[in-house]
């Protein structure tokens, strides 16, 4: 039986609108499930303790990035309990990377899936899976006005985007207590790569002579400090702020994903 932990507030209360078709689809695919509503995400650990039973096949997050991140953090202490996602927000980052672009595909994956082991990391006191982004906050209006648009093209105001000093923050990284890195940081992306154990891949985009430059490092442990506090984003949710310690751990989380055969594009019949 699948334990569906539903965040009714996620995706602008989308669950209310999809509740009926979701139940219909689950029934049609003959999926046995139990729905538990999460009223407060801080109680997720207690909900899991109370509702996970011997016949629980997997815990499924029905919600957005916040719901997914909170359940992953709570599930990390369970040995080999599979995790699934039915995305109800349009920006569910981890669901998208696993091939679940809508709540319907999330349900289909429950019926037919493969298990992929996602490596876990620790950010401060909580676990994360997938990727993290560290970047200085940008003024919303500045971001909008920097974008190229048809209207701006029409009035001839589309300017070539140049990286600006204010979007870069003096940043210092300590990798595995052996290497220190100093840079003007624009964006940092942290993720795990197959074949590198618990080492994280750290991809930096920095600024030098008004040009962006890429840097790549690998480390088990990373301490970030910066001249300004920067948000650490998992999915679209800010999970911490710098200064922060991020670690790769030797735990993995079994995740239900779309079978590889279904991800392949259909061949044209001749």
């Amino acid at each position, binding site marked *: 039986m699948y334990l569906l932990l539903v965040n009714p507030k996620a995706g602008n209360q989308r669950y209310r609108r999809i509740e009926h078709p979701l139940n219909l689809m689950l029934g049609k695919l003959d999926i046995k499930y139990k729905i538990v509503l999460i009223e407060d995400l801080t109680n997720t650990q207690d909900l899991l303790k109370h509702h996970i039973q011997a016949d629980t096949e997997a815990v499924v997050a029905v919600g957005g990035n916040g719901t997914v991140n909170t359940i992953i953090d709570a599930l990390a202490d369970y040995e080999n309990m599979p995790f699934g996602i039915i995305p109800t927000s349009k920006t569910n980052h981890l669901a998208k990377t696993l091939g679940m672009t809508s709540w319907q595909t999330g349900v289909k994956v429950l019926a037919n899936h493969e298990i992929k082991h996602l490596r876990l990391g620790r950010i401060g006191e909580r676990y994360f899976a997938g990727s993290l982004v560290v970047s200085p906050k940008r003024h919303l209006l500045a971001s909008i006005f920097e974008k190229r648009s048809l209207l701006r093209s029409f009035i001839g105001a589309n300017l070539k985007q140049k990286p600006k000093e204010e979007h870069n923050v003096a940043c210092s990284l300590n990798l595995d207590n052996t290497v220190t890195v100093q840079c003007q940081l624009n964006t940092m992306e942290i993720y795990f790569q197959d074949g590198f154990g618990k080492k994280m891949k750290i991809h*930096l985009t920095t600024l030098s002579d008004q040009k962006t430059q890429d*840097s790549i490092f690998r480390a088990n442990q990373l301490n970030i400090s910066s001249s300004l506090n920067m948000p650490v984003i998992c999915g679209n949710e800010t999970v911490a702020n710098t200064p922060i310690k991020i670690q790769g751990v030797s735990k993995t989380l079994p995740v239900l994903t779309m079978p590889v055969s279904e991800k392949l594009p259909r061949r044209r019949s001749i």
Partner: protein
Amino acid sequence: MAKDRKDFADPSHLDTLIGKGVVVEGRLASEGDVQINGQFNGELAVNSDLIIGEHAKVKAEIEANNVYVAGEVEGTITAKEKLEILETGRVNGNVTSQALSIEPGGILKGSSEMQEVSEDQPTAKPTFEVEEEKAE
């Protein structure tokens, strides 16, 4: 495997890449290829190839398989196979390698020690084979 100049701009094969403007200090150990375009101070232990880009400034004790220098290096270099100093490269320190090549314009200030190539791995084809090919 020996690298070509076009490989230097391709970060896909790299394990570590230090971009221009980035300053790194400490002991960097790597199993894969490393490319430095910024600044590095400390110790480099690379089990694969090391590329020091044109704008790079490195003050380090270096150990790697093949070393390609297009920037500035101050310190000793030990290359298990080949050390190549390109036309913009400057090395101030002692170097040890099986093979050394310095392009016109490249500078080496220091002593060079050549390691013997092991007999198990011949680096060139025997001459008679070449002659046979010519005869054909």
